[in-house]
């Protein structure tokens, strides 16, 4: 093991301090006894207790999770279908235009997306609520899914699909039995991406949510405007915990799958 040079050690410390000090402060103050956020008055978990009692926050959290699950699932289905057609559909009329257009929402300012969706929903007389947030999130996250999935499809050996057809699959069966299982990792990461995008979206959600449905980011944002409370700190800490656990679990699962594959390959090499 090489020892770090002092220069590298300082760079590393500064870099990570920059990234994590704000979060660490937030976590520390979520355990503050005092109601004043900036004054430390001893350790306490009472804000967590109050949080669990706070109906408004719990409702918002539940709305957020439902919106994220529905919109990311819908976005994954639509985005995968779009990617499949654009990569596999051959040279149909307007393909280049469509390929370009699918990327446009990626760079579109969220304010514009949110505003135009708001106008649309008002125009067609749709009451704003969970449904409209789901639709809005699906709209902007499906292009992310489409980008992730199409980059996988480009490197996908088309003769695999032809082989499936050749062995008696209908095109739909070939997709279900061969293409989908092989591109599944890309589809899953597309879903996860859409899920996280939906979880932390504030701008588009605030345009498309109604009085009946508020997501957690909106709730936090409006609460903070009335002053930061230790309760918000506690809530944020919980969110950090959830994300951390999720990320660690995902990487452990991937690592184990890779280890198993390596073991299989070594076993194969031995018996040859």
């Amino acid at each position, binding site marked *: 093991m090489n020892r770090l040079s002092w220069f590298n050690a300082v760079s590393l410390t500064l870099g990570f301090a920059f990234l994590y000090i704000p979060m660490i402060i937030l976590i520390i103050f979520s355990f503050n006894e005092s109601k004043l956020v900036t004054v430390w008055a001893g350790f306490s978990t009472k804000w967590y207790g109050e949080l669990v009692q706070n109906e408004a926050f719990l409702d918002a959290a539940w709305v957020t999770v439902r919106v994220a699950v529905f919109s990311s699932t819908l976005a994954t289905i639509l985005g995968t279908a779009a990617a499949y057609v654009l990569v596999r559909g051959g040279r149909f009329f307007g393909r280049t235009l469509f390929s370009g257009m699918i990327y446009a929402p990626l760079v579109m300012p969220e304010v514009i997306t949110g505003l135009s969706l708001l106008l649309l929903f008002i125009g067609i007389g749709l009451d704003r609520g969970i449904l409209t947030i789901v639709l809005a999130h699906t709209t902007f996250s499906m292009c992310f899914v489409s980008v992730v999935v199409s980059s996988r499809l480009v490197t996908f050996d088309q003769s695999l699909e*032809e082989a499936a*057809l*050749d062995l008696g*699959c209908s095109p739909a069966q070939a997709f279900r039995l061969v293409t989908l299982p092989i591109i599944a990792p890309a589809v899953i990461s597309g879903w996860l991406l859409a899920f996280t995008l939906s979880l932390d979206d504030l701008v588009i959600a605030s345009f498309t949510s109604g009085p009946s449905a508020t997501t957690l980011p909106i709730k936090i944002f409006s609460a903070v405007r009335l002053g930061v409370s230790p309760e918000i700190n506690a809530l944020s800490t919980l969110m950090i915990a959830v994300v951390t656990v999720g990320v660690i679990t995902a990487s452990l699962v991937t690592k184990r799958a890779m280890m198993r594959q390596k073991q299989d*390959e070594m076993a194969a090499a031995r018996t*040859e």
Partner: protein
Amino acid sequence: MNSDVFAPWEDPQAKPLIQFQNVTKRFGDFTAIDNLSLDIFEKEFFALLGPSGCGKTTMMRMLAGFETPTEGHIMLGGQDIDPIPPNKRAVNMMFQSYALFPHLSIWENIAFGLRRDNMPKHDLEERVEEMLRLTRLTQFARRKPHQISGGQRQRVALARSLAKAPKLLLLDEPLGALDKKLRQDTQFELMDIQEKTGTTFVIVTHDQEEAMTVASRVAVMDQGQLMQVATPDRIYENPNSVYVADFIGDVNIIEGRATANGEDTYQIDWAEGQAPLTATSANGFAQGQACHLAIRPEKVTISADRPADAINAVQGKVHDIAYLGNLSTYYVELPNGTIIKAQTANTRRISRRSFTWEDPVWLSWTATAAVLLAD
């Protein structure tokens, strides 16, 4: 004709399994297949041979159903198969990349096609085991494709495409990814399996040696057309054009003008100050018609003195020697600058070689050794 020899193409009564009827295939402005007609018979091992871009892969993809002819029809067992999609055809294909399903085990790869037919479980298991035995893969059945070697993958691809007992098996450059030694072993294995299963095989290859080894008949293709369709020995010994003679194996081509000299015998004037060459040909040539004389290097004898009874003999000096181990090819330069290749088997050790660079030598060949081809 000996009736024991397998040669249905000689029998006017035989019904072909596959018929290309004036098939043309265009991709935009590009004509991949140009008004091509061809019969392939049951139990044949038929090779489509040609350089890349000659249309051989397009022929195969039309048979598999991935492409449809722009004009003309393809018949399989007397039935027009153009409107039938690939998944409904009694044709299976072994892909160049093997296209094994990476997420399925070897066993499941082979069972894949059978499952689509809803074969009863017991029959399916029996069929898969049979295929595993045929291709000597039984011990690898539970592995995934990435856990076996290239040669084994090739056999899985073969087993998978044979599992449904197709009327016709298509093989797209099946041995391209294997190294030379493994390729030779696999060629014989392929022939063996073809004979055992009695399936009609159509193989696409650009490797002429491979085509000659495995095939009952070879079709040499160029620019979407068939140049010659014949058995490997006829293709080699009696090419019908300079293109085929040049594409298959090594050949010396001498340009000249033919003059009749007795029945089926011609004199060829080919260079100023050189004695005319003599060659036989069943095809008629007009007086003074431009022609090409094709002579295989192994049919040219190299000697220090002029052989007394030689019909064709030319003198030159050794320009270069290609030593191939078992064979040596001598590049002999004639006084007018023409280079003629002569190949001999190295029956003696190299230190005892009779000729070396710059040695004056005589080259000779018989009247029947060369093939006379029209321009």
